[in-house]
C-alpha cells in the first residue's frame, strides 16, 4: 500500500442519541443545513415498532424505529437532499473509494458491523450490521471516525473498518457508503414535517403486517408469555429479559429513548408550524416514553433477580399491552391533527 498522507476534514464531531439519525444530521449540518437530530428522525418517520423472529437471531426480538436506511431515504425524499451511495464487492476498491473522497475533503458515511468498532466499550459490541458512522480523516494506519456513540473523534485501524464493512451474514453492508452531493439550503421543512408525521401514523396504525406498529406491540405482549419455554436455561431467560432493558434504554437509544426523541421532534414541529396541538402531543409522547422506561426497568429487575413466576410475566405482558393501547390512541389522535396542519 502506498503511504497515505494524514489528513483531518474539519467536521464537527458530536454525540447523538442514535447512529443513523445522528450520522445523517452530522452530514446535513456539515453541508450547511442546520437541522436537529429529532427533526431528521421525525421527518423521516423514524418512530415504529417491530417484533420479529428470524433464523439470524437466536431469540425473538423487537426494534422500536423504522427499518435501517429509511431515515436516509426519508430525508432524501422529503427534503430533496441528494446522497451518492455505493457498494463495492472488492474490499480494496471499497477502501480506495473512502481515501479518494477524503482527499477531496468529503466526509463519508459507512454502514458497518458494530462489533468491530473497538473504540467502544466491550459490553456494547455485538454483531449488528446496521451501525452508521462517518469517516472524517486518516492518521497512519487508522481512519478517524465520527461515531455518534463515541465522546471523542475515534481512531480505527483500517483492518477493523474493513472487517466492519464486510462482515458477511444477514444484511451484509458490502462496503456500503454514502455522502451528500446536494444539500438544499432552503428546503420546505414545513411540508416535510407534515409528510413525516402522516407517514409515521400510517406505519404505526395501518401497515397490514401483524409484527409492525401497534399490532407489533400487541404481538410482543402476547409472545412474551412464551419466552420462558424458548430459553435454554434460567440464565438465558434472564439475559433475554434484560435485553428488553438494553433495547429500550441503551442500544440505539431504545424504545423509551426514541419516544423521547419523537416528543422533542413534535415540540420543535409545533414551534415551526405554529401548531399548539402538536405541543400537547409532544407532552403526551413524553409520557408514553416514561411508561416504556418503567417497563424497561421492570424487565431488568425481573431478569437480575431471576423472578420468573407466571404472575410476573403476566404483569409484564399487561404493561406492554397497555403501551399498545396508549400508542394506538396517541397515533390516532396525531393522524387527526396531521390532517389539519
Amino acid at each position, binding site marked *: 500500500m502506498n503511504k497515505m498522507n494524514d489528513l483531518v476534514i474539519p467536521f464537527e464531531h458530536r454525540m447523538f442519541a442514535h447512529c443513523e439519525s445522528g450520522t445523517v444530521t452530522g452530514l446535513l449540518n456539515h453541508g450547511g443545513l442546520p437541522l436537529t437530530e429529532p427533526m431528521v428522525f421525525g421527518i423521516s418517520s423514524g418512530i415504529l415498532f417491530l417484533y420479529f423472529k428470524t*433464523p439470524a437471531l437466536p431469540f425473538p426480538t423487537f426494534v422500536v424505529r423504522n427499518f435501517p436506511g429509511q431515515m436516509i431515504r426519508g430525508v432524501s425524499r422529503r427534503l430533496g437532499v441528494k446522497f451518492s451511495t455505493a457498494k463495492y464487492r472488492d474490499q480494496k476498491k471499497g477502501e480506495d473509494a473512502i481515501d479518494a473522497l477524503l482527499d477531496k475533503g468529503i466526509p463519508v458515511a459507512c454502514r458497518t458491523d458494530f462489533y468491530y468498532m473497538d473504540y467502544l466499550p466491550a459490553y456494547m459490541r455485538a454483531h449488528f450490521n446496521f451501525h452508521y458512522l462517518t469517516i472524517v480523516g486518516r492518521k497512519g494506519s487508522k481512519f478517524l471516525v465520527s461515531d455518534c456513540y463515541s465522546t471523542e473523534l475515534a481512531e480505527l485501524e483500517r483492518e477493523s473498518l474493513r472487517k466492519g464493512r464486510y462482515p458477511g451474514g444477514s444484511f451484509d453492508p458490502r462496503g456500503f457508503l454514502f455522502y451528500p452531493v446536494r444539500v438544499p439550503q432552503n428546503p420546505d421543512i414545513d411540508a416535510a414535517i407534515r409528510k413525516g408525521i402522516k407517514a409515521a401514523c400510517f406505519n404505526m396504525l395501518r401497515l397490514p403486517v401483524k409484527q409492525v406498529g401497534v399490532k407489533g406491540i400487541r404481538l410482543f405482549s402476547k409472545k412474551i408469555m412464551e419466552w420462558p419455554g424458548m430459553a435454554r436455561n434460567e440464565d438465558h431467560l434472564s439475559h433475554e429479559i434484560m435485553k428488553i432493558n438494553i433495547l429500550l434504554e441503551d442500544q440505539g437509544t431504545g424504545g423509551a429513548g426514541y419516544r423521547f426523541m419523537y416528543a422533542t421532534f413534535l415540540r420543535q414541529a409545533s414551534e415551526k408550524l405554529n401548531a399548539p396541538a402538536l405541543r400537547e402531543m409532544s407532552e403526551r409522547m413524553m409520557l408514553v416514553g416514561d411508561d416504556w422506561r418503567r417497563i424497561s426497568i421492570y424487565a431488568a429487575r425481573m431478569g437480575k433477580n431471576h423472578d420468573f413466576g407466571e404472575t410476573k410475566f403476566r404483569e409484564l405482558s399487561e404493561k406492554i399491552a397497555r403501551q399498545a393501547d396508549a400508542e394506538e390512541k396517541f397515533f390516532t389522535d396525531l393522524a387527526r391533527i396531521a390532517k389539519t396542519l
Partner: protein
Amino acid sequence: MKEKDARVEGKDTHQLVMYVEKDDGSYDSIMTGSYLVKNYVDDFWDKKKKIEDEFLGKIKNGEATPIMLYMMLEELTEVELAGRVGISVRKVKKHLTPEGFETMTLRTLKRYAEVFDVPVVNLMQAVVTKKSGLQIRAEKTKNPLFYFLRIEG
C-alpha cells in the same frame, strides 16, 4: 422524561445522549451516564463468564468445540455464523463437533477467528493462570496465523 430522572452519575458508565424535559419545560438533549451500565453490567459479564466456564468444560471433555463457545458468547445462530464465515450451515454444524472441527482448513479457521475477532490460536487453546494482575496480549505479526503471546506483569 425529566432531566433529573435521566441523569446517571458515576464513573465507568459510558456517556450517551438522551432527549429529556429540562427544568424550564423545554425538550432538549443531555449527555448522561448509562443506567444500564451502572446497574447491570456486572450481571452481564457474570453470565458471559458462566457460558465460558460451561463450554470450556465441554470442550475439555470432548463434547464441544471452541466454535460453539464463541458462537454462544456472541449470540450467533448457525445460519448467521455460516453467512459470516462464508460457508454452508451444514459445515458449521460439522465444525461444532470435535470430529468435524479436526477436518477444518486453516483458511476456514482464520475466517472464524476474524468473525469472532480473536487470534486464530484462541480457537485451539485457552490461557489459564492463577496469578492475578497479569497482562496477556496477543501481538499480531505479518503472518495472519502467527502471534506472539505477550505475558507481562
